[in-house]
């Protein structure tokens, strides 16, 4: 019950941000030099064509009125029509949402699976050989462009040692998982490079906390101290660290989807930009931002679940 209340109140706090997001997505295309109709039609579009499209897009009305109708369209679940696909944008985005979510989810799981044990180990044995190796590894990993690593991994694990598919997305859960292993690993590596350092230092802080001394003074063996006390308390920082990087993970899908031919929001964004499908680009930026906000909200709720101090205060 408290959790529900907490979630609702966080949601209420997010409303202004969501409104701001629509505002930015709306004005993103309006502040660009040149008017959208001309951009869409090109310089040789006849004045009549431009006028017609301007009317059709409602661009002849004042900006505030355009924005309000944009908002009411969104409220009705409509993002307008795609120029390239000549179809409603909403369903097109809806179809592409799932592969992206799967990629984000899978890579987050992998990132957590890498971050938690490595951060733990390096925090406990700080200054050790492993600590240095992990640090070097992730400095390198952070500097590796995902698209480049993608190309190399495809060569290595889809051609030289063919254990993963070259590109694409499967039809059912398992084949999709199989298709997502390489792309998700690449995103996860990038994420872990960022998260492992911050988590390590927060684990170091937890390890120095008084209650860890209390636990040890109780005669708890090190194993239990680590898993019962350190782990759970550093979980909160894992969650907040991951939440901070959500936007990075979600953004990372854009390039990676293109490399691996995954039919998600990111590859749609890239092709829509090349196709100058501006309404689609607008709908997609909006969707991406809402996605980030939703994931952050989820992280908040998870945080509240793990840390009793949050939802109650």
């Amino acid at each position: 019950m408290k959790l529900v209340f907490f979630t609702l109140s966080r949601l209420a706090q997010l409303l202004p941000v969501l409104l701001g997001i629509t505002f930015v997505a709306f004005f993103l295309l309006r502040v660009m030099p040149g008017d959208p109709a001309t951009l869409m039609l090109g310089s040789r579009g006849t004045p009549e064509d431009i006028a017609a499209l301007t009317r059709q897009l409602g661009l002849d009305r004042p900006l505030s009125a355009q924005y309000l109708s944009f908002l009411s369209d969104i409220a009705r679940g409509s993002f307008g029509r795609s120029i390239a696909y000549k179809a409603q944008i909403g369903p097109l985005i809806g179809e592409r949402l799932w592969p992206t979510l799967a990629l984000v989810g899978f890579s987050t799981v992998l990132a957590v699976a890498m971050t938690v044990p490595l951060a733990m180990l390096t925090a406990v044995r700080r200054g050790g050989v492993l600590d240095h190796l992990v640090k070097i590894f992730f400095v390198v990993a952070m500097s590796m462009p995902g698209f480049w690593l993608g190309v190399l991994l495809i060569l290595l694990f889809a051609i030289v040692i063919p254990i993963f598919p070259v590109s694409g997305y499967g039809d059912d859960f398992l084949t999709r998982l199989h298709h997502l292993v390489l792309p998700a690993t690449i995103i996860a590596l990038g994420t872990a490079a960022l998260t492992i350092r911050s988590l390590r230092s927060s684990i170091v802080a937890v390890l120095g906390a008084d209650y860890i001394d209390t636990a040890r003074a109780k005669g708890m063996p090190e194993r239990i101290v680590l898993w019962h006390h350190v782990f759970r308390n550093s979980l909160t920082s894992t969650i907040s660290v991951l939440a901070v990087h959500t936007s990075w993970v979600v953004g990372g899908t854009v390039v990676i989807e293109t490399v691996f031919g995954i039919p998600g929001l990111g590859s749609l964004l890239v092709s829509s930009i090349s196709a100058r499908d501006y309404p689609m680009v607008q709908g997609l930026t909006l969707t991406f931002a809402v996605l980030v906000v939703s994931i952050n909200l989820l992280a908040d709720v998870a945080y509240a679940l793990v840390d009793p101090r949050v939802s109650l205060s």
Partner: protein
Amino acid sequence: MRPLVSDATRLRFARNGNLQFGLAMLSLLVLASVAGSALVPFDPLDIDFGQALQPPGWPHLFGTDDLGRDVLARVVASASVDMKVVSICVLLPFLIGSTIGLVSGYFGGWIDLIIMRFVDVLWAFPFYVLVISIVGALGPGTGNIYLAFSMVVWISFARIVRGEVLLARRLEYTQAVSVLGYSHARIMLRHVLPNVITPAIVFMMADVVLTILGVTSLGFLGLGIQPPTPEWGVMIAEGRNFIQDGWWISLFPGLAIVFVGITFSLIGDGLDDFLRPKP
């Protein structure tokens, strides 16, 4: 005569392996950017079908690409292109963001409220999504890349500097100088700024790593610097089609990006230790 650098500073530098190593790598990078094309005996734009897809060896140390262009010459030529673009893409948001953060934190009140709400909103848009959308809408070209990065990345600097300003405002010295009746501009620039800028400078190094990835990603997607100008991201994209019989076309520009990333990670860590000595 007073030495320019104090002994303590010199000692801090001598003990800072990260910074020394990073700066050594940086000088290599600068050398390649400035004098690189003079060191490689091939023109990065020379097409020679007869020499297409030569593996690394002599005289093409990094091999040649599908059009017979020397990969080493192209990787080196890219260094000046990419480093210039990256520098501007980092400096502009640094200047804009730090200024906004300074103003926001110093004045507080509704200015701060509005700016920080706006930062919160922009924060929700993934970096890549926003940059790609803006460059996509404006069209490729370096000017538009600078604009896109400036529009997106300033929020990081604004947040960092604002947070530091809020801390600094509580310190006595700013309160003291404000009693002396200096102008806001003078207090901000002479008294607050020097005390808050260090974390932004340290972050700037980390931002170089993110930016080199961003800029080359744009190139890879065909939205960045346009061919035939050699650019690491574009080269990787081109080499991708020859990954089996010309893996070197993609490999070397990628390694170059990793090199830049490691350089600035080391400098960032090193600067952090150097400028903010921990007890």
